[in-house]
């Protein structure tokens, strides 16, 4: 049994390690007889059982989120498959600092070429009581990788990401296609 954590009943590997003692009585040793009395003897067999549960941290695959026509305030929610049976660190990184125009990310004339967004993260955890790991980032800040730590907790299953686009300012956004790549990485910390 992993210290401090409840072993969840899923068929994923070895059973928890435990030590058990089995005592068996065998009529094997010679018995002593004195003046008609008998003395019981016994043999003892100790059996030690051990196994291991490997550390496992896995994320579900990402996906494609199409926000359609960008007018500002678009919201997208992604429920991400996430399992980690040891304390962990989740990292987030944006490739372009926001949704960027395919060919003119710096814009043209008075029209901007990048639309920023906010990213809210919520991860249910166990420590051993249920809690939630939460954080918020702006897409511009995510151009350098940002991490959040579970502080000793393990994942309770799943993670939720919510993205909300900013409202374009000034003349608005340059016409065209916009895209962004957001990478989520989990690293065990134990």
């Amino acid at each position, binding site marked *: 049994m992993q210290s401090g954590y409840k072993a969840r009943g*899923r068929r*994923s*590997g*070895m059973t928890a390690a435990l030590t058990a003692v089995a005592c068996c009585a065998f009529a094997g040793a010679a018995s002593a007889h004195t003046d008609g009395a008998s003395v019981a003897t016994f043999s003892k067999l100790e059996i030690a059982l051990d*196994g291991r549960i*490997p*550390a*496992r*941290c*896995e*994320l*579900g695959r*990402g*996906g*494609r*989120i*199409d*926000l*359609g*026509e*960008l007018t500002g*305030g*678009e*919201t*997208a*929610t*992604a*429920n991400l*498959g*996430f*399992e980690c049976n040891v304390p962990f660190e989740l990292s987030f990184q944006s490739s372009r600092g926001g*949704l960027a125009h395919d*060919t*003119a990310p*710096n*814009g*043209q*004339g*008075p*029209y901007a*070429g990048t*639309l920023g967004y906010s990213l809210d993260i919520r991860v249910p955890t166990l420590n051993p009581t249920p809690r939630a790991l939460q954080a918020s980032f702006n897409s511009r800040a995510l151009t350098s990788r940002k991490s959040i730590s579970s502080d000793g907790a393990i994942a309770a299953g799943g993670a939720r*990401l919510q993205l909300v*686009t900013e409202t374009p300012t000034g*003349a*608005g*956004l*340059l*016409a*065209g*296609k*916009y*895209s*962004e*790549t*957001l*990478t*989520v*990485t989990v*690293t065990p910390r134990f």
Partner: protein
Amino acid sequence: MKIVSLLAGVAAVALTAGVASAQDINRGQFTLGPLPIIGTQHIDVGGPGAGNLIAGLANNATAQNGNSSISAWHAFGNAASDVGTAANNDSATFTIQGTISTDCAYYSGDNTTETFNFGTIGIYASDNTGPNSAFEMVDDAELTINTNLAGCNSNNSVTISRTSADLQNPNTSGFDNTVFRDTLPYSVTARYTGSDFNTGVGGAPVARTQTLAAGAAGSSVQQNGAWRSPMALDVVIPQQPLAILAGTYSGSFSITLQTI
């Protein structure tokens, strides 16, 4: 507000089924002896491999036979291996996309056609006017049309065009064409702040003065990158050196903003 929900993958526990080869337990011992000199020997049985499996099965059978002359114990067991790969690091990638449609704007109120009437275009009509000036225009006729919203959010062209080069007079009167004329040429100049066309990068604004000259046929076209600014259209009917035939003069021109 648009809400898009995406179920991003599944947790590791739901990976493809099919238990991999187990981490098998095959181990035991049996007793030989007591033998002369060396006494009782405990012989190990089991281990990985087919040969050891056969020996293990035999020893296991002995270990369950209470009538056997050989003491033996044996353990068989296994535990399912990991389903999937127990990765140390893992990552998920989201691709987020959206579009902005091309659009041009020219604010002209609730309609796209406007008519402007100069009224009487002044001419020298007095008997006291010298013969060189009689029936000639007193001065230019001018008109400026302003809007505070014009532009396009992508590469575009601004075109000034007209069906005829001059204002036309349908008066059927004959006239001496060395003295009179029955058309009035006019120019149209568009003034606005544009940008450099198709550079792929943002740049400084570019002041544009685009003119369709008086008497010129065809159109005036200026290409721009995305721009947005007020726009002024200056229409000038210049004073003519010839006398002007009486009648109503009319014409039309268009200003078109179009994405490329």
